[in-house]
C-alpha cells in the first residue's frame, strides 16, 4: 500500500486534448469535412482523427496515467515516460493529418505523412501501453474496474495496429494482399476497437470507480457487473479478432459484426442497470455538477445504443451511421470527458496546492475551487447543442449542423475557461487562496509530491 501521488504530465495531456477538441469543433463549424464532404473523404478523416486521437485518446491517456494507479492502489510504473509519449502522439497526429491531406490531393508532396505517422503513433502508444500495463501487471489480481482498463488497452493496441496497417498500405509501403484487404474492409473494426474498446469500455470501467467514489455509492462487484464485463470483452474479441479473420479468409463481415453487436448490447444493458443502481444507492443525495452532467453523457450512450438497435432492425444503419457515431463521440465520450475534467482538474489542483498544507493552515475545500452555478449553463448548452447537432445530421441539414457545432464550440471554450480558473485558483476566497508555504500550481504541469 505505497499510495499514489500526482501524475506529473496529466495536465499537459488534458491541455493538448482540449486544444484538439477546439480545433475539431472549429473545423465542423466552418463546414469542413462531413456533412459537407463525403464521410470517407480526407477532410472527414482529418476531423475524425483530430477528435478520436487528438481529443479523446489524449484525454484518456492523461486520465489513465492518474487513475490506473488509483484503481489498483499502486504507483505509476514510470513518471517520466508520459512526456516522450505525449510528444510522439502529438507529432504522430500531425503527420497523420498531413497524410490525409496528401491522400486527398490537398497537399502536393511525397506521401511521407502516413509512414511517419505510423512510426510516431506506434512509439507513442507503445510507451503509454508499456507504462500502464506494467502498472497493472504489478497489481495482479486486478479489481474489476482495472480489468475494463486492461481490455481497453488491448483494444487500443489492436486499433493502432490496424491504423498502422492502413497507413502503411495507403502510404505505399505495404503491398501484402491480406493487408490491402484489411485496409479496404477493416475500417469498421478500427472504429469499433477505438470508440468501443479503447474509449467506451475504458470509460465504463473508470466510471464504476469514479461515480461510486464521488457519490458515496457502494463499489459494484456482483455477478451482473462481471457478466457485463465478459459480454463486452467478448464483443470486442469477436469484432476485432473475428473481423480480421473474416476479412482474411473472405467470410461474411456483417455476420461477425452482428454477433459482436448483440454481445455489446448485452454489455451496455447490464452496464446501464449497474449505473442506475449506483445513482440510486448513493449516500450523497445532492450530487455535484460532474455527476449530474455525467448522467447526460450516459443518456447519450443509451440513446445511441437504442438508435443503433432500431436502425439495424430497419436495415438502415449504414445510412444513419454518422449521427449515431456523432452522438457516441460528442454526447457520450466528450460529454463524460468534459464533465469529469471539471472534477478531476479541481481535485488534482486542490491536492497539489493544498495537500501539503492540510491541518497546518486553513485551506479551502475542493468545491471552493469551482463555481458550479456558473459552469452549469455551459455544460447544459454543450449537451443541448450536441443533441441538436445529432438531429441535424440525421435530417442531413449541414447549415443547422454548423450552427449547433458553433454553439458546442462556444460552450467548450467557456468550460475550458472555467478549468483555467480552477487551475489558477481564481475563484477561491482570497483569504484562503494561498496560505503561507503554498504555491500557485503551474497551468500545464503538476509538481509531484516528494516521497
Amino acid at each position, binding site marked *: 500500500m505505497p499510495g499514489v501521488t500526482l501524475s506529473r504530465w496529466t495536465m499537459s495531456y488534458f491541455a493538448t486534448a482540449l486544444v484538439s477538441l477546439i480545433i475539431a469543433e472549429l473545423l465542423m463549424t466552418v463546414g469542413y469535412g462531413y456533412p459537407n464532404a463525403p464521410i470517407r473523404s480526407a477532410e472527414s478523416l482529418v476531423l475524425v482523427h483530430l477528435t478520436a486521437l487528438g481529443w479523446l485518446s489524449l484525454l484518456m491517456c492523461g486520465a489513465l496515467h492518474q487513475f490506473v494507479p488509483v484503481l489498483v492502489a499502486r504507483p505509476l510504473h514510470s513518471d517520466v515516460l508520459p512526456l516522450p509519449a505525449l510528444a510522439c502522439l502529438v507529432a504522430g497526429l500531425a503527420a497523420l493529418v498531413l497524410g490525409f491531406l496528401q491522400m486527398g490531393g490537398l497537399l502536393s508532396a511525397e506521401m511521407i505523412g502516413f509512414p511517419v505517422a505510423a512510426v510516431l503513433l506506434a512509439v507513442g502508444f507503445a510507451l503509454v501501453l508499456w507504462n500502464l500495463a506494467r502498472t497493472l501487471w504489478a497489481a495482479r489480481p486486478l479489481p474489476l474496474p482495472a480489468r475494463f482498463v486492461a481490455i481497453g488497452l488491448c483494444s487500443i493496441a489492436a486499433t493502432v495496429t490496424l491504423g498502422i496497417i492502413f497507413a502503411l498500405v495507403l502510404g505505399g509501403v505495404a503491398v501484402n494482399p491480406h493487408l490491402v484487404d484489411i485496409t479496404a474492409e477493416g475500417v469498421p473494426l478500427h472504429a469499433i476497437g477505438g470508440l468501443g474498446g479503447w474509449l467506451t469500455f475504458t470509460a465504463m470501467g473508470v466510471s464504476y470507480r469514479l461515480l461510486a467514489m464521488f457519490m458515496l455509492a457502494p463499489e459494484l462487484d456482483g455477478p451482473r457487473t462481471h457478466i457485463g464485463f465478459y459480454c463486452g470483452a467478448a464483443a470486442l474479441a469477436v469484432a476485432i479478432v473475428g473481423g480480421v479473420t473474416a476479412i482474411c479468409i473472405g467470410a461474411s463481415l456483417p455476420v461477425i459484426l452482428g454477433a459482436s453487436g448483440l454481445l455489446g448490447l448485452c454489455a451496455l444493458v447490464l452496464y446501464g442497470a449497474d449505473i442506475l443502481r449506483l445513482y440510486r444507492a448513493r449516500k450523497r443525495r445532492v450530487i455535484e455538477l460532474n455527476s449530474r452532467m455525467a448522467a447526460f453523457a450516459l443518456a447519450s450512450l443509451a440513446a445511441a445504443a437504442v438508435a443503433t438497435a432500431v436502425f439495424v432492425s430497419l436495415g438502415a444503419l449504414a445510412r444513419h451511421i454518422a449521427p449515431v457515431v456523432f452522438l457516441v463521440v460528442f454526447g457520450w465520450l466528450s460529454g463524460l470527458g468534459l464533465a469529469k475534467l471539471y472534477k478531476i482538474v479541481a481535485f488534482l489542483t486542490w491536492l497539489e496546492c493544498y495537500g*501539503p498544507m*492540510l491541518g*497546518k493552515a486553513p485551506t479551502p475545500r475542493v468545491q471552493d475551487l469551482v463555481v458550479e452555478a456558473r459552469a452549469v449553463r455551459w455544460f447544459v448548452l454543450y449537451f443541448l447543442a450536441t443533441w441538436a447537432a445529432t438531429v441535424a445530421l440525421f435530417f442531413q441539414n449541414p447549415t443547422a449542423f454548423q450552427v449547433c457545432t458553433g454553439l458546442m464550440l462556444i460552450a467548450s471554450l467557456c468550460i475550458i475557461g472555467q478549468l483555467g480558473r480552477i487551475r489558477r485558483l481564481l475563484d477561491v476566497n482570497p483569504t484562503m487562496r494561498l496560505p503561507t508555504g503554498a504555491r500557485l500550481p503551474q497551468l500545464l504541469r503538476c509538481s509531484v509530491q516528494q516521497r
Partner: protein
Amino acid sequence: MTRFVDVDVRPILRAGGEPFDKIMEAVNALQPGEGLRLFATFKPTPLLHVLGAKGFEHEARALDGGDWEVLFSPSTAQRPDAATDTLAGGDDTPWPEPRQHMDNRDLDPPEPMVRILVVTEKMAPGDVLSALLCREPIFLFPELAKRGHAWRGGFEPDGVTYKVLIRVGAGREPAK
C-alpha cells in the same frame, strides 16, 4: 521446494480480532527459503501488497465456504527498498492503543484525508490514531510519508470498511 509454515488466522478474524501482528510474527520467524501458508476468511489484498514489499510472491486460492488460502513464497527477484518498510508500518512490533478514533466512512472524498491530517497535526509523536474509511486512502499515504508518520491499514473482515492506524512521527525522516 519451498517449505510452507501454516498460519490460520480464521479464528482471530471470526472473533473480530486483528491478525496483523500474528502474521508478521510468523513472517519474521521464517527461515531463509521458507514460505507462509495463510488461511483467512477473506482475500487479504492489502497484506498481499505488504508481503510483496517484503519480497514474497503470492498465490491466492478461494476455498469452499468463502475462505481463502494464500501461499507466500520468497521471491527470487530483489524487491525491498527503503521506502517499503515505512509504508508497511516501519516496524513489526506492536503499537500502543490508539489515542483517538475517527469514523470517516460517510464523508465525501477528500474530507476523510483532510480530517485525518488535521488530527495528526495536533497529536504528540508516538500517538496512534485509528480511522475507519470506506476505501483505501491512497492519496493520504504519500502525505503521511512526507510528514514522517507511519501507518498500517487493511480492510476489515466485512471487506468494505478500511481501517488505518497512523502513528505520528514514527516513520522515516520527513521529506524536505
